[in-house]
Every structure is written in structure tokens, then in C-alpha cells.
């Protein structure tokens, strides 16, 4: 009987190995014919191409590895922005879909049906080529609240100019650590003595006071730099100073968050509906206030249903951010698998690095979310 178990495994293994051998043999032959040698040494060579938008200092004299980092950081940037906004919109819409108000429920439902049934790529194109192209030129832009400028060349916002930024960041980190300790202490106190501590107000206080202290004692200083219009030539204007968000980033983040929010909204709705009514009634009957019912009874149970599918949506968003290549937002795929691949012709190395990077990103997010999921799961004794 053992034979019946070993044979299929052996066959599969042989097939897989044969396929691999076949592929690698061909790859070797092909590369020899083209005179390329396999290796990752090219990463340290000078890249000699420029990237429009980068978070770290970069120009053509830097290495391919640096270009890779630029792309990776841009991918992470747009994913984080997308995740934050998608979560906010998704939660609001998800709750709106549960509203007893017919108009609100319908509006949310129409939004969900509409945005989830249109391909993401089409939405990105729409925002980039149709909607954002309808914005005014820099010289004609009307300021929003006097300091923001929404133009065809991008969104110009005031930037902070910091002195001793590091001390400020340390103070924020210190505040966060303090909040964690306060929470732990409050939990212990409640378990031992049954006394509740107002954790939320203490945390907010800490988060305001510590950074404020850093301003007075740590010599931190911040001033705001407002974008000012500047004439480049007779007909060309731009804004100087402040922070420029390129239209590629805006349309990509907009499309990603609006699209993913529809899926998150459905997760939220399913999660809240999944908590049985009896739970809420039981909580109310032991004298918890409506806020406490939501915080202590409904949300912990709903989160258990919401988190796993939402994690999947975050992963999808991160992977979908690669569509950036379509509108020339310099993300990992465009910079590395696009420009760098064209220049070096090293298809196997570059595509494998790109895929491995996305695999690592996905696995990191899913490990973190699994850990969090396990932490809040019901601990049955």
C-alpha cells in the first residue's frame, strides 16, 4: 500500500524537477547566445537614468540598487496612503450601509456597487487622464484656504521646516511608549481592583504634552513654508516652496483607496452584522453604556470577523499599487522592472528581484496581521 502513496509523489517531483531543469538549461543556452552572464553585480553599477519623484536623494549617478530603493519606497508610500484612506472610507461606508436611514444606506450601496464593478486600471486612468487634467494651470489656480493649490501640475501644500526634527520624533516615540505602559497599568488595575482608568484622555494628553515640551525644552522649532507661484518662462509657471504631490501619486492613491474601500466596507458590514443581537442586549442589561457596549462587546467580536478579509484587501492594495506603471508613477515596477530592465536587459534577475520583493511585502503584512489576529482571537480555556 505504501507504493500507492509514493508513486504519485515521485511522479510529481520528477515532473517539477524536469520542468526546472528544462527551463534553466534553456536559460543558460539563451544567455550564452546573447553573451550575458547571470549575476547580480549590475546592482552596483551607475544607473544613469533619472526618476521624477523620489523620497530619498537620487539622480543618474547613483547605482541601480539605489534606483530599486527609490521604487520600493514609492511603492510603500502609495500603499500606506492608500491603506489609510481606504480604511477610513471603508469603515464609514460600511457603517453607512448598516444605517436605518434609507437614503444613507442606498447612497453607500450605490457607491460600493459602482466602484467595485469597474476595473481599477480604468479608474486610475480616469482620475489621471480625465479628472485631474481638468484642473487649472498653476497661474490660474485658486488657493484653497489660502495655502493649498490644486493644479494640473500637482497638489501644492505648505511644508513644515523643522529644526531639531529628531528630538521631536523621539518625543512622539516616547509618548507612544508611555501610552503603552499606561494601558498595561490600567488593565492590570482593572483586573485587580476593578477600577477603570480614563486611558483615552490620558493618552491624548500624553500625545499632546510630550511633543509640546520638546518645543519648549528641546529647542525644536517648526515654521510653515507656503508655496509661492514662480514664473519659469513667459508662459510657464510653477510653485516654489512647500511640498509638491505629483498628480500621478494623487490619482493612484485616490483610485486605490476608493476601489479598495468598497471591499473593506463589505468586510465591515459583514463583521458588524456577524455579532448577534443577544450580545448587545446582554451587554446593555448588565448596565454598560452604549459607548461601552460598542467598545467592550461589539467591536472586539466584530473585529475578529473583519480583520482576516481586511488583511487580504490590504495585501491586494499593495499588489495593485503596481498598476502605477500605467500612469508613470515611479514605483518599483516602473523604475526597476521597466526602466532598469530596458537599460540592462537582465530580465531574469530583475523580474525575480521584483517578484521576491512583492512576495516579501505580502508575507510581512500577512505575518503581522496573523499575529494581531491571534492576539485578539477568543482564548478558549
Amino acid at each position, binding site marked *: 500500500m505504501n507504493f500507492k502513496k509514493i508513486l504519485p509523489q515521485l511522479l510529481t517531483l520528477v515532473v517539477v524537477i524536469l520542468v526546472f531543469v528544462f527551463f534553466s538549461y534553456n536559460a543558460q543556452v539563451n544567455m550564452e547566445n546573447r553573451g550575458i552572464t547571470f549575476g547580480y553585480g549590475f546592482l552596483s553599477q551607475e544607473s544613469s537614468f533619472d526618476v521624477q519623484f523620489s523620497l530619498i536623494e537620487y539622480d543618474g549617478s547613483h547605482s541601480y540598487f539605489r534606483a530599486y530603493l527609490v521604487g520600493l519606497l514609492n511603492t510603500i508610500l502609495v500603499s500606506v496612503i492608500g491603506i489609510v484612506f481606504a480604511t477610513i472610507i471603508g469603515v464609514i461606508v460600511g457603517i453607512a450601509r448598516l444605517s436605518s436611514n*434609507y437614503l444613507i444606506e442606498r447612497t453607500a450601496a450605490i457607491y460600493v456597487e459602482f466602484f467595485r*464593478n469597474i476595473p481599477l486600471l480604468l479608474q486610475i486612468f480616469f482620475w489621471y487622464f480625465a479628472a485631474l487634467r481638468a484642473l487649472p494651470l498653476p497661474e490660474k489656480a485658486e488657493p484653497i484656504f489660502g495655502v493649498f493649490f490644486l493644479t494640473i501640475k500637482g497638489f501644492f501644500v505648505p511644508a513644515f521646516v523643522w529644526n531639531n526634527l529628531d528630538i521631536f520624533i523621539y518625543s512622539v516615540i516616547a509618548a507612544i511608549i508611555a501610552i503603552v505602559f499606561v494601558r498595561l497599568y490600567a488593565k492590570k488595575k482593572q483586573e485587580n481592583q476593578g477600577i477603570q482608568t480614563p486611558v483615552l484622555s490620558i493618552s491624548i494628553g500624553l500625545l499632546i504634552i510630550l511633543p509640546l515640551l520638546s518645543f519648549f525644552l528641546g529647542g525644536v522649532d517648526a515654521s510653515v513654508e507656503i508655496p509661492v507661484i514662480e514664473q519659469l518662462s513667459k508662459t510657464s509657471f510653477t510653485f516654489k516652496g512647500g511640498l509638491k504631490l505629483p498628480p500621478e501619486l494623487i490619482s493612484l492613491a485616490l483610485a486605490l483607496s476608493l476601489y479598495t474601500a468598497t471591499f473593506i466596507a463589505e468586510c465591515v458590514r459583514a463583521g458588524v452584522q456577524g455579532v448577534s443581537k443577544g450580545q448587545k442586549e446582554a451587554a446593555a442589561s448588565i448596565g454598560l453604556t452604549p459607548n461601552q457596549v460598542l467598545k467592550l462587546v461589539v467591536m472586539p467580536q466584530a473585529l475578529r470577523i473583519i480583520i482576516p478579509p481586511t488583511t487580504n484587501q490590504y495585501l491586494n492594495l499593495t499588489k495593485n499599487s503596481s498598476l502605477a506603471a500605467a500612469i508613470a508613477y515611479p514605483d518599483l515596477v516602473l523604475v526597476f522592472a521597466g526602466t532598469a530592465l530596458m537599460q540592462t536587459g537582465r*530580465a*531574469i534577475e530583475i523580474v525575480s528581484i521584483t517578484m521576491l520583493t512583492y512576495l516579501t511585502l505580502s508575507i510581512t503584512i500577512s505575518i503581522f496581521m496573523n499575529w494581531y489576529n491571534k492576539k485578539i482571537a477568543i482564548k478558549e480555556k
Partner: protein
Amino acid sequence: MNKLNFLSPDKNNLYAYLYSGIGLFSLSILIVFLNSFFSLDLTSFLPGTISYFLPLILGFMGLHLIRIEYSGVKFLEVINKNINTNKFNALLSLLIIFAVIKSLPPLLSWFIIDANFAGDSKDACSGSGACWAYIKTWFNRFMYGMYPNAEQWRINLSFIALAFLGGVGFFATEKFKKYLTLYYVVVYPIIAFLFIFFFISGGPIFFDFSYGIIAAVISIIIGFFIPSKFKMYYFLIIPITIYILLKYVFFYEELIELGKIQAFEWVETGAWGGLSLTFIVSFFCLIFCFPVGLFLSLGRRSDLPIIKYISIGFIEFWRGVPLITVLFMSSVMFPMFLPEDMFIDKLVRVIIAISLFEAAYVAEVIRGGLQALPRGQYDAAKSLGMGYWKMHIFVILPQALKLVIPGIANTFLALVKDTPLIFVVGLLEIVGMLNLAKTNPEWLGFAMEGYVFASIVFFIICYAMSKYSYNLEQKYKTER
């Protein structure tokens, strides 16, 4: 006579509150309506800010006045229950109503009133509205891509024929119902492929692959007459034998030469495009990804460690990378892995890549269904003496697949929505064609119309699919 207290309306003076409330509410809507449709400003005598918020205040007061509990008036109860439960809800309802009224005129004028329908050049579009003449002129390109105009009937005919053949299941009598699965899984895909290859592509009758197809068809036909006891061995041996016989024994040069005659003009896959390409790609990916995903999911739950870990690795790999990199791989990296004289068409490579990618997702969905089945089902099947395949085919899969219909439908929906990505390898389906049309110097500046058109097309397709899957789910919902 009871005292009127407008701060807390009750049912004693029901009609006084009701009429004043409805009056205020209607007035607020009238103001917004006139303002947005006829740009009449009834409240211009008031200072700016107040005039701006006046409808909101009036409507809010009106809704407050009609928020009367147990009034006994039916339509009032309905209104109160649905849009007017408390102050916050009343405010939100008002905002939504006003937003709809405000946004209707510009939308209507853009879509219909100021839009241009006639004409065949850019000059025809002078109005401020949409230029539907642009869509009309480019309609053929959006549907068929660069496919020659004179040959487009071939695509239409194939699609109509395939739709008919696909709809056979609805008309099948009880007697044929049991062959339907076989038909859809084996016969229909082959017919579809032949249609696409001979008709749309205009390929020669004999090509490398046709031996395989003929072998498969002959062996299936003979297969009906083989006792089921030997069927397994039969299907392992006979197709390969027929293939070898065909290729090496009945090898007539004259026959091959005869077969090279083409009935239709050959159209490169590079020229295919538009919505028809969307359909072709999603159709074939859908056909291929389901069986692959099924085997992967079974592999992942297998007791045999090597098969299990290979399946897990395969699934997690495809699920972890974005589709765009997979397409990059299929276009720039995959040719490196093939022998130099071997060439696989771009479209075929894309279809294989998307199928493998979606198969990983299908596998996870099916695994969910397999896990949801109670252990008792497996035990019961085993206790009847069923082997692994018998157990899965007759007991486990029919139940598990029923459970995962919505999940699979969602995956297919995602597949359809992912097809525009094939622009990466240079194939232009509808979105790609839009981008091409947009850059045409004679038709600059109509990006919006194109995207709105494509959005409507995709919305109709995807919405219909999701509604259909919902119906299927309801139909197959069995009590457990």
C-alpha cells in the same frame, strides 16, 4: 385647544405641525431645485452666508416638526422611520437630497442636453457637453481593436455560435443532463478553441496541435462505449496512442499540404483588441483556471507531503505577486526559458499566465469549501469503501463546490476586471484602445467620454455577473 410648542411637536396638534413641517421642507427643496435647474435665487435678499445655508435650516426645521411618534398617519410613519429617525439622520438625509438635486443639472447637460451625437469629426463637437460622436466613430475599434473591418463578421459569428453552444445546458433534457459536466469541461473548451483558431485567427486546418485535438475527440467518442471499469486505464493509454499513430503512421505529406490551405485571411493576434479581446482572454482564463485551481486545492489538502508542499509553494507564490509582474514575466522573462526555435504566441502566453495566477486564487476559494465540510462526510464516504477519487468526485466536491459558488464568482469577476492589464505586453483590449484613441491627433481631448463609456460597459458586464452569481447562490442553497 392645546398649546403649540414648536420645539417638541406631539400628536395633539398633529395637523398644525404636519402642515407647517411639510411646508418648510417643501420650501427648502423648492429653493434648491429652482437654484440648480433654473439658477433662480429666491433668497438673494438675505446676506450671503445665511442665504447659502437657508434651505438646510428650513428643511431641518421642517423635518423636526414632522418627527412625531405614533401619529397614526401612514406616510408620515414611513418617512420618519426611513429618513428622519433623529436630528443627525435628518441632517444627513437633507444633505443627500440637496446633493442629488444640485448634481443633476450638470450631469444631465453633460450627458444628454449639451452633448453631440451626430457627426464624424472633432469639429462636430462644439458644445460644452459630451462628444458621443467620438465614441460612435471609434466604436468599431473599441469593440474589435485593429481587426480588419471587412473581417469583423467572423468575430461576431464565433461569439454568437459560442453563446449558443454555451447555452445548451439550459435546454438539455434529463437524459443528457449527466453529460453536461463532461460537455462543459472537455468538449466546449475544445470547440471554443477551434472557433477562435479557425475563425477569428484564420489558422490553417492542420497545425502541430491538431493531432492532439483529433486524438482527444476520437478517444472521447470511443470512450462512451468503454465499460466504466476500464475507463481510467483507457483514458491513460488510448489518447497518447492515437496521437502517436496520427503523427507518425498516417503521416501523408499530401494531407499536410492540403491542410495548409486557409479558408480565411490570417489575422495576427497583435491586431486583436477591444472588447472582443477582453471576452476571449477572460473566457479562456476562466476555463483553464478552474481545473488547475481544483487540483491545486486538492493537492494542498493532500496527505502526501511532497504534493502538499509543492501545491502550497505554488499557490502562495502566485498569490504573493501582483499580476502585472506576472505579465512582465510572461513577456520578457519566459522567452528566455524556452528553446530558441520555440515560439509561443503573445496572447497564448498571456492566457497561460493569467490562468495560473487566478488558479491560485480559485484554489484557495475551493479549499475554503473543502474545509467547511464536516469530517463526517469524508468518514461516511470512506466507510462505503470509496477510494480517494471516487470519494471526492461523488461526495465531497459536489457539496464543496456548491458552498463556494459566490467565492468562485468573485474570483471570475476579478479576472474580468484584471484583463485590461494585458496592455503591459502590448495587447490592447478596450481600455488599451481608449488610450490609443485618446492620443490620436484628430481626436485630442475626449479622454473623459472614452473612460465614461468603458466604465459603463464594464459596469454592465460585472454587475450582471455579480447578480447572476447571487442568483446561483440562492438556487443552490441547500439545507445542511
